[in-house]
């Protein structure tokens, strides 16, 4: 029994070390001078020079600002649109309800990521190529968000709504004052998933942006590390860590909430 337990703990640890190794190695090279990037020495001098070099070699400040604006715009838009739609699906009976809900669910499989060609044409038609709204637009209406919020809204007791109606509250008033506060945990979970997803998104922003003023960090990083001559690995690794830094930091600080929110978002 206890041998079994020991073996399992050992196995779990071994896999954990293997899993963390790539990241640990990237951190190691990033905080040591370039001379040590292929040579382990426990007493190698620490330095933050790689981060400084990376920061100065590309407009990362601008990239961060773009990404920040992007995830904020997307999250705000998603919350507004998904809340309204989810409320309609959760509390109203109307003709076409099932068909429309099926259309929403379809987006869980056919995501905008795949329709890059036609979406590019649409954005060009709107004359929005190379703008931050262009990166955000395809993702504003999220089938997943509507579905998740609908599930939450359906669990709100109907009596609460009826009481509010008797008080003379309007439809929107009930939504804002009764439903939304009760769904805060869902909003939090959805927010974390959405922010991390769009912070990390790459293909669509790569296609639709082509200037420093709009490029998010992921695209900036890919351009930075594609210059294969001259840039040292330790600098690339520093840039890599910088790019994922804010999310990584948030994750380490709010590990529990992160894991739980992914769990919550996953349970369908």
């Amino acid at each position, binding site marked *: 029994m206890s041998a*079994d*337990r020991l073996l399992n703990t050992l196995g*779990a*640890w071994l*896999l*954990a070390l293997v899993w*963390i190794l*790539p*990241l640990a*190695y*990237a951190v190691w*090279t990033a905080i040591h001078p370039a001379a040590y990037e292929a040579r382990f020495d426990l007493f190698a001098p620490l330095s933050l020079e790689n981060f400084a070099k990376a920061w100065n070699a590309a407009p990362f400040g601008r990239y961060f600002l773009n990404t920040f604006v992007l995830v904020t715009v997307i999250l705000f838009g998603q919350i*507004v*649109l998904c809340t*309204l*739609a989810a409320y*309609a699906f959760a509390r*109203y009976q*109307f003709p076409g309800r099932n068909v*429309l809900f099926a*259309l*929403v669910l*379809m987006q869980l*499989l*056919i995501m*905008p*990521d*795949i*329709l*890059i*060609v*036609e979406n590019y044409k*649409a954005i060009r038609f709107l004359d929005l190529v190379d703008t931050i709204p262009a990166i955000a*637009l*395809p993702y504003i*209406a999220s089938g997943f968000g*509507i579905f998740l919020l609908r599930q939450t809204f359906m669990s709100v007791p109907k009596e609460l709504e009826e009481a509010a109606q008797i008080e003379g509250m309007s*439809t929107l008033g009930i939504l804002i004052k009764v439903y939304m506060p009760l769904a805060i945990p869902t909003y939090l979970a959805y927010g974390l998933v959405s922010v991390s997803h769009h*912070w*990390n998104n*790459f*293909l669509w922003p790569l296609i639709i942006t082509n200037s420093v003023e709009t490029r998010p*960090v*992921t695209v900036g*990083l890919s351009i930075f*590390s*594609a210059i294969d001559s001259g840039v040292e*690995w330790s600098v*690339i*690794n520093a*840039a890599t860590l910088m*790019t994922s830094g804010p999310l*990584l930091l948030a*994750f380490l600080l709010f*590990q529990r909430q*992160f*894991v739980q929110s*992914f*769990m919550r978002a*996953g349970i369908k």
Partner: protein
Amino acid sequence: MLQTRSWIHAWLLLFPGLVFLIAFTHLPALTTLWSSFFTTPRGRRPAKWAGLENYETLIADPVFWKVLWNNAIYAAGTIPLSVVIALLMALWVNRQMVGRGFVRMAYFTPTVLPMIAVANIWMFFYTPGFGLIDQIGGAFGFAQTNILGSANSALWGVMVVTIWKEAGFFMIFYLAALQTIPTTLVEAARVEGAGSWTIFRRITLPLLMPTTLFVSINAVVNSFRMVDHIFILTGGGPDNASSLLLFYIYEVAFRFWDTAYAATLTVVLLVFLIVLAIGQFFLFDRKVHYR
């Protein structure tokens, strides 16, 4: 009268969301099909009706078949492995042990990283002569490798990165499911004298079936969507050895600017996803049987 008013309310609430949903998901899906029957407009020459010409090109295109085959290998190689590893991780992290917090963090961290960052980190591992793999191999006297540069191994190099990134994500779903298994069930089995392996095989595994199905469907969809790392690691090469369907679509549309042919390729991808959706519907409709 009251009913009509509530209908109007519902439609008004749905309107903004549906406009965006239709504009960027459903309409493009339909226009993709439409565009696949036309030629690509070039310069002052507008698109012309081409009938099935694009599809004939597709069938005769060796790169298309190569990429499709790659995607099949990619799915067959990454899905079972990442699901099994995820289950193992969840089982481990669900029990009491020393340093459980660290272990859980180690498994999950890759999920939070951008795929582009992940690819950068792994690139450093794979670099011939200089990277960690060759350094460790070299210490044991192995010859230099060029995993990403050789047609036989490039796709496998990409697949390893996918598994590393995905397993921890799937682990979360298993972990959630494990926590809903009633402990009384396990205790009862133990009283009956069942060993750990029997309990796992007869109780845990069957109760995890719906999760396995959910995770697998997710993994299949991801195997069509995940291409970010290919940009950094191999660029689809050498000789398309590590290119996947979506990456090929990107290349055709935005490098060769052949949007009509890219639309044709997208139709193939959509057909796969729709078949998957129908399959999922029937699977979930019958419910996964617990035994």
